[in-house]
């Protein structure tokens, strides 16, 4: 995938995310966010410092434009960007990582891509839900919310990846 194509998809998906947050009223135990998938599957040519800045700006805009708590998405999305290279080395292998190969479900298989996505969503929602509840909600509720949000976001991300690939 070319960098310009990635940025285009990224911008469209970020706008879609903002629209979902503004217009889709979901219950308190469910949050849908596909930004972690976008950050986690960004081309390897984009280095971590630049990816961190992209994540910061996107998350800030999402928080700012959706009248959410300013900083909440930023706090949760930055660790995903920071851990991306580490996750690639674990799930894809050092060789592909060193060659800076593009990541796709066709080339590396859905299982490996799913591994990266699941860990990314787990990191994201763990921080997001805990920070959002700020110690005011019970652990069981938070656990359920993390599980539901992870599942929903993972499924939507997979559909999106298939759509982009086709």
């Amino acid at each position, binding site marked *: 995938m070319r960098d310009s194509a990635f940025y285009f998809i990224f911008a469209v998906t970020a706008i879609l995310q903002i629209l979902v947050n503004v217009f889709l009223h979901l219950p308190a135990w469910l949050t849908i966010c596909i930004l972690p998938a976008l950050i986690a599957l960004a081309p390897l040519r984009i*280095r*971590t*410092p630049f990816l*961190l*800045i992209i994540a*910061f700006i996107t*998350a*800030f805009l999402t*928080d700012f434009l959706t009248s959410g*708590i*300013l*900083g*909440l998405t*930023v*706090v949760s999305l*930055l*660790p995903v*960007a*920071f851990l991306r290279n580490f996750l690639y080395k674990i799930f894809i292998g050092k060789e592909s990582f060193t060659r800076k190969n593009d990541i796709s479900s066709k080339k590396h298989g859905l299982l490996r891509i799913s591994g990266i996505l699941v860990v990314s969503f787990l990191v994201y929602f763990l921080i997001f839900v805990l*920070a959002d509840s*700020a*110690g*005011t909600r019970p652990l069981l509720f938070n656990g359920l919310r993390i599980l539901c949000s992870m599942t929903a976001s993972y499924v939507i991300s997979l559909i999106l990846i298939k759509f982009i690939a086709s």
Partner: protein
Amino acid sequence: MTKGKRDYSILVSAALFIGLEIAAFGMLSYGSALHNVWINRMSHRTVATLWGWEETVKSYFALRKKIEVVTRENEELSGAVRALQNELIKAGIDTPDVSEGFTYTPATIVKMSRNNRLNYVILDKGSRDGVEPGDGIITACGVIGIVDAVDEHLSYGQSTMNLNSSVSARIGHSGIVGPLSWDGKSNDKARISNLPLHITAEKGDTVYTSGISAVFPGDIPLGITGDVSIVNGATNMIDVHLFQDYSSVRYVTLVKKVGKDEIENLEEYANTH
């Protein structure tokens, strides 16, 4: 990418990540009173945990100093008890003999060998502190050795982990008495040998100092009995698992029998006549 360049890249990424996360937490704290309280509480908890760890580490390293203080206090208190006892004796008031005819001097081990067959121990107390050759070296868990030579500030002792050493031991408070000596192999095992064949011991009995020598007071627990074996078909030998861990001992007490000179003179007189 070379290793140096890669390390530099990781450092830059980590620094940028930390900087941006701090900015994000700042935004979160500034934007909502609830999150401000939450972040403050988390920060206080983290700081409290770090302080707790710091205190644990500090107190661990201060332990040696504390033990020295406690040992010194113990020495002062023992001295006070003895002085008071003497006063009571002078006043003609009957008092229980807490020292059982022994004087006690706390000491610290300067050096101790453990890997030889003839192990030794060097203590930080010498003739200036009243230490003499033949004084016993003990701890609350057993016997460490016997003073062999004395310098002005140091004393050299033969460790119990020495094939030439033996201690008069008793099985139980009123059992058979025999010489306890090191087995020559392990840090925590000894044996009581030269026991008549009809003498045996139950496994797990406690072994104490006998108190019949002029070196150690009686009833200091030394260890517990193990297996009994016959040596050359003539005598019994009982294995003893010692209480004292020789690898960790640092503080000991020197014991001296009161009137030891008198006993030795009497022995000498008996031998010559």
